[in-house]
């Protein structure tokens, strides 16, 4: 019996008071020819205890990354999220609220999101941040359409944007879906052998509406060359930089080297990987983009007594006011996950963020050092890395991953899934959760794998 219905057993009483004979009277306006016949062909209801038992069985059969050495990242990162974040975010006042349309009773979330905007703004070095888009990919895609709205009139290459050729195909596909409606042409920017951006090839992007690059790039490389990009592309081309937010504890904020828009997957700050969602997309920008940017924004205001108060502002950009002329169709966003991010950021503070970034750097460095001494493994890029790096293995990377999996290790990401010709390349990801024992296990098994390959060869 379903236990979520307080008026079960009172139906007749309520219907009678309204002058109806039965529930059927309430549906008399639905024509017979569109009515369901019979019961829904679905399973019967379950009690809470049965549901949680099934959930534990089914979800328990999934392999949690934390249950074994895991080096899979490629855009999502397993970091530790402090316990207080989960405790606070499940407070019903946050968890069960809707969008703050009535600011007088939504001050808590509004202020928390205004603080989130400030935290993100400071993190990326830009004056304005919204209170989240769906994920890093949609934030990047909306940054491209935003750049075109802002720059199209003065651009010598109107309706054109350039993105790094390293951009993961799934993210690129999101960009295509978001850009095709406005007939925006997405062109590719090539990279050098060492993983850095080809600054000479970049010159072709000057005069376009926007350029999208990542720091660290999708292969984990920290690319100093990005600091030269804004000068090359010029003031009428938006420099959009995608970031891993934790890296900004040690890596320069893109706003300080010319970025006009910064986007990114917020997930590493505040949220577990959660099968890829819900996450939150970071979106920050400079002033010229403000009135054409997507997403909700909170402003500080006053109430009728002159008391400090917060409310949603600049709503005339949004779909519920501007309808088909809105800057984006986004309505529901990822506020609660952004709140988790804000809590994590608040708890870390500037020193904690630097320390966390350094721990991530150390795990990465340790893994690189250990793997560089592992037989049959070659580090592909001699560069500075954050979180992840590419190795070349003996034989096929895909078969190697299967071998590692058979031996209880989630070995990384097969780069052939992004770049079909890279059949021997694995993207190995470390985070603050990577232990020395994890790294040693990976190296030992990769050494075994190399040996197997030699024998077979």
């Amino acid at each position, binding site marked *: 019996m*379903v*236990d*979520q219905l*307080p008026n079960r057993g*009172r139906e007749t009483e*309520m219907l009678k008071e309204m002058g109806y004979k039965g529930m059927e009277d*309430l549906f008399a*306006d639905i024509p017979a020819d*569109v009515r369901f016949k019979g019961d*829904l*062909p679905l399973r019967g209801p379950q009690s809470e205890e049965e*549901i*949680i038992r099934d959930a*534990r069985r089914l979800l*328990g059969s999934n392999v949690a990354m934390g*249950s074994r050495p895991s080096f899979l990242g490629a855009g*999502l990162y397993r970091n530790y999220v402090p316990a*207080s974040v989960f405790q606070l975010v*499940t407070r019903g*006042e*946050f*968890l*069960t*609220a*809707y969008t703050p349309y009535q600011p007088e009773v*939504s*001050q*808590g*979330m509004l202020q928390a999101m*205004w603080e989130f905007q*400030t935290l993100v703004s*400071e993190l990326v070095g830009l*004056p304005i941040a919204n209170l989240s888009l769906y994920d890093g990919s949609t934030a990047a895609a909306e940054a491209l359409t935003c750049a075109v709205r802002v720059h199209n009139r003065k651009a010598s290459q109107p309706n054109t944007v350039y993105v790094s050729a390293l951009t993961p195909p799934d993210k690129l596909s999101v960009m*295509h*879906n978001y850009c095709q*409606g406005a007939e925006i042409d997405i062109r590719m920017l090539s990279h050098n052998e060492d993983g850095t951006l080809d600054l000479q090839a970049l010159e072709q992007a000057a005069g376009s509406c926007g350029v999208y690059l990542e*720091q660290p790039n999708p292969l984990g490389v920290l690319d100093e060359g990005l600091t030269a990009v804004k000068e090359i592309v010029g003031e009428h081309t938006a420099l959009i930089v995608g970031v891993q937010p934790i890296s900004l504890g*040690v890596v320069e904020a893109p706003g300080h080297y010319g970025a006009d828009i910064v986007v990114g997957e917020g997930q590493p700050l505040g949220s577990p990987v*959660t*099968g*890829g969602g819900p996450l939150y997309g970071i979106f920050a920008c400079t002033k010229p983009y403000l009135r054409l940017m997507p997403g909700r924004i*909170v402003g500080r205001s*006053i109430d*009728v007594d002159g008391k400090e108060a917060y*409310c949603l502002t600049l709503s005339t950009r949004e779909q*519920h006011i501007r*309808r*088909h002329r*809105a800057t*984006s169709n*986004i309505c*529901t966003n*990822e506020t609660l996950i952004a709140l988790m991010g804000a809590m994590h950021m*608040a*708890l870390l*503070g500037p*020193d904690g*963020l630097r320390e966390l970034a350094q721990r991530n750097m150390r795990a990465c460095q340790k893994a690189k050092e250990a793997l560089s001494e592992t037989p049959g493994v070659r580090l592909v890029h001699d560069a500075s890395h954050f979180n992840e790096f590419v190795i070349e293995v003996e034989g096929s990377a895909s078969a190697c991953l299967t071998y590692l999996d058979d031996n209880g290790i*989630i070995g990384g990401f097969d780069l052939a899934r992004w770049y079909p010709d890279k059949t021997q390349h694995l993207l190995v990801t470390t985070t603050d959760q990577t232990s020395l024992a994890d*790294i040693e296990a990976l190296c030992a098994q990769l050494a075994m794998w190399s040996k197997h390959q030699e024998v077979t060869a």
Partner: protein
Amino acid sequence: MSHLFGHNGAENTGYSQPAGLDCASEPSVPKGLMRKQAAQWPRLSEPEMVRHYTWLSKRNFGIDTGFYPLGSCTMKHNPRVNEVIAQLPGIADIHPHQPEHHLQGLLSIYYEMQHMLEVCAGMDQVTLQPVAGAQGEFTAVRCIQEYFRMRGEDQRTKVIVPDSAHGTNPASAAMAGFEIVEIPSRADGRIDLDALAAVADETTAAMMITNPNTLGLFEADISAASDIVHKAGGQMYYDGANFNAILGITSPGLMGFDAVHFNLHKTFSQPHGGGGPGSGPIGVKAHLAPFLPGPLAARREPSAEERSMAVDEHWYHWHEPEHSIGKIQQWHGNAGAVIRCWAYYRRYGNGLTTMSEHAVLNANYLRHAIHREAKTAGVDHLFVDGAETDVAKHEFTLSMQPAKEAMGVSAMDVAKGLLDRGYMAPTVYFPLVVPECMMIEPTETESKDTLDTFAKHFVEVLKTDPETLHAAPVTTPVRRVDEVYAARNLCLRHPFDEA
């Protein structure tokens, strides 16, 4: 006031971390890329951080706080076991790129959810990829767009929406590159078939509509509308925002729709979290299925080796539709939200019909109770139904226009008066076709007593003198917020240099 940026403790007052790994050589950032100035983040200890966010939470109103009759948003109770389930490592700590044999439990839940939504909506294939209702709309119109491109019907560049539609409908279609044709509703708030017939032609790609409509009325002419659009060669798109009214009673498929999105955060209780996350799966008829974004969960007979790892008699795997439009977000949808909604579905199973019956029962009862109390108190002349109807569905509208004319009391005044009595206000000024509109949706998880008490309080508000109402609310953490001031004096982040 508690201000996050007022906390400036000593260095390293925050969360303490274990030492990093020892390396042979120190890791380093390229010189020109080293961060020169740290972010101006606050420094606070865990006790201070916990107190700050607890203080903030007490200045926020959720379903747990009190009755939340926000029309169109389906603010039903969020069962707590769903939160416990969503934090299990088997969902919180899995990566979408793990191999299929690591994710059999997740895949089986995806499959079950796809199937359940297909059954409830009368559609042939569901994808759980879109992460919000608006993204579901966008995804579906993109599928429709590619369907017509493949058929060589590139001239279908227009999408029809009624003037009572949610703003996301025209925004989503415009984002996909469609031209929007808005048609007026009839005086009674229902679809105008003549107006529809006048605009449906060989340039029509789709019509987007919700049913029950945004006035909470069932569009009895929906089959005729479907016929008009289909005869013109267009597709019918169902906005599932109001799905809570009809589960197990009718379905978009039975009404003639080709595509539909679901708001799992409305109908299936994913908590809305102050604005998100959501989940916006879409379902389509077979002819649109090849265009869906993947991956979809599919299943087959397991091999002998797979059998030992299977969660039931099937082997579950990901599947990419043949002519997929590609990705609309990078990963596999909001898996965490899907899991919560799966747990919610399991609670009802085939009893989902009862859920919708109670949603409609409560809406009609509340409408009845408000009229009853108003009559008793002699204030029934201060409002009228937003649309004339015998029965409403899961929500109903009232127009405060008479109160406005008689005593200068607006829908917003009434809303603020309700805040003072401990309620979340209904949706106001939407749909735009009802003057001084209040849109009220109680949901099935409110008791008769709550509805009776709310009706009494609603009438009390109407009896309040206009001056008091203009000044409301007075019991809330702040009084009426000056939105014009916010827009004219933009302050979008903490001003660090302010005294």
